[in-house]
């Protein structure tokens, strides 16, 4: 099973809308939503959960106040400002490294596991889906991303699928890097704004850093033709092939409201553009 990952650097450029369109158009595929901070792909699908489980993220240092002698050794070694002046542990700052527990002379601190989210696999009208939800205020989304990918690959084996469509998260950090490992191809979705271009440069840097082939899609291209041209010039200079442009089309949102992809509306201009982009993708994907 080969995989294609949707990334953008900047948020809200249309990663999930394009991934949803591909989900509608592709055959023998598995879907994975690796934007675990804000997973949205399932909102275009009708998931019936087939398996699920808890995700244990980082552990948390917990102190037994009866044992604590307030010696302060824990505070000395903590590099995350997670131990206050009165030696209480701040759960939002604690990264669960265990240094405090190691140095505590009276074993007052233990590392306690905690549930930071949950993962699931589901059957949907467009094929099997692996997704997850990080609980509010919880950390280690990179680890949860790896878990979703693992579940997606298991689904792929089971269903003998040919293609894995991965919806990624915005940014360039931990969850993005976790989603990028092992991807055969990345589709970068941008929009014609100076912010979009700025963020595209940085995410392209990450994708190239990991040596993954990248293709570009310019969404809402007609919002600013000049900037769209600037982005195409940048792409040409960087030898980043453009799969296509998508025009701004209110139908994308209208279809989203009813839980559908724009490609399901025959009159949608954006839907037609996405179908064309999918055709070009199928041609180039054979070589990756």
């Amino acid at each position, binding site marked *: 099973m080969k995989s294609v990952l949707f990334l953008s*650097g*900047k*948020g*809200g*450029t249309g990663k*999930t809308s394009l991934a949803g369109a591909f989900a509608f158009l592709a055959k023998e595929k598995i879907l994975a939503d690796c934007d*675990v*901070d*804000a997973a*949205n792909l399932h*909102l275009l699908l009708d998931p019936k959960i087939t398996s699920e489980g808890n995700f244990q993220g980082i*552990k948390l240092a917990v102190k037994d106040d009866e044992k604590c002698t307030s010696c302060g050794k824990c505070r000395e*070694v903590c*590099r*995350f*400002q997670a131990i206050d002046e009165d030696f209480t542990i701040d759960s*939002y*700052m604690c990264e*669960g*490294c*265990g*240094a405090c527990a*190691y*140095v505590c002379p009276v074993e007052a601190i233990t*590392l306690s596991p905690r549930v930071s989210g949950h993962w699931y696999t589901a059957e949907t009208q467009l094929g099997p889906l692996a997704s997850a939800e*990080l609980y*509010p*205020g*919880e*950390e*280690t*989304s*990179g680890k949860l991303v790896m878990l979703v990918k693992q579940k997606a690959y298991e689904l792929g084996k089971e269903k003998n699928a040919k293609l894995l469509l991965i919806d990624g998260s*915005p*940014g*360039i*950090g*931990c969850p*993005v*890097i976790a989603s990028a490992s092992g991807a055969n191809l990345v589709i970068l979705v941008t929009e*014609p*704004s*100076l*912010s979009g271009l*700025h*963020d595209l440069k*940085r*995410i392209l*840097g*990450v994708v190239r*850093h*990991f040596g993954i082939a990248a293709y570009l899609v310019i969404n809402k291209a007609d*919002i*600013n033709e000049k*900037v769209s041209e600037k982005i195409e010039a940048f792409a040409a200079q960087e030898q980043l092939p453009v799969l296509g442009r998508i025009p701004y089309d*209110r139908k994308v*949102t209208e279809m*989203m*409201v009813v*839980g559908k992809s724009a490609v399901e509306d025959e009159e949608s201009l954006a839907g037609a553009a996405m179908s064309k982009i999918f055709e070009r993708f199928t041609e180039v994907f054979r070589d990756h």
Partner: protein
Amino acid sequence: MIRIAIASGKGGTGKTTIAVNLALSLVEREPVQFIDCDVEEPNAHIFLKPRIKQVRSVKKLLPQVDEQLCNQCGECAKACEFNAIAVIGKKVLVYNDLCHGCGLCKMVCPTGAIHEIPHELGVIEAGEARGFPFAQGLLNVGEAMATPIIHALKDDIDQQYLTIIDAPPGTGCPTIAALYGADIALLVTEPTPFGLHDLKAAVGVARSLGVPIAVVINRNGIGDDRVERYCEQEGLSIPLRIPFDREIAALYSEGTPLVDALPAWKERFIHLYHEIISQGGEGATSVASGFMPDGLNKRRTQGATLSAAVDVPAVDIGPNEGPKKGEAG
């Protein structure tokens, strides 16, 4: 003065638009400082065109193993909670992306084979924009850990100022780091199913941190009214709605602040500020205590940068260098 963090679960809803225009609308009335905590993809500089005066490096400490002293006992790998160090044959491998720089491996090593070297995660650029102090963080391309840069950025906050924090999207560690200690979270959303779903997640994060919330609806008029209904149910105020308008979208695309091109919007951002001050988003009780929910904000008094993030001396790069200086390629 108060700290306003502009956040959203979903990306691209208009955080930077709100943050930039709020700062530009308030600057004549209040001493404003602007902190761009979206260190993965900072965009405020595109609109504010800051003059960067100082660049400093943010580093974490990464273990290095002296193969002469190492006896491959594996204690380091056993102790590491992040699977960032592994003994493979006669070699010890350190995985930079996974390492949090906690120093535990060094502590447990019985032969003293581990020492730590500073490893740059990114930079902080500080200067001035449109008459107010401006700072932004930039995660180096290829690095995974954004939070130490956000913590280091926040250590620079001067309490004399009304601080506007542009937070990263999502609900994970970088968002928490940016929201932590804020007096109010201004959550920017759009009236679509994706916007609603991610707003709920962002509300969950702000509430778990005890930060009062107010909501801004951007691109109002597209989608449906489910965001409005959700806010009503949850008792969340919506002190500002910005309609979907191609002119506004075009201004954004060119990096022109809304209030520069359409000055009438200033009044609406000032109104937004007064609304959140007077009602304190949800949890109006926090207003009485000067926007200080119980137990929060104590970290303001701690001036020190994370010791895991080693500061190097600031480099003066002169007033004419653009904000791109120091950005990894």
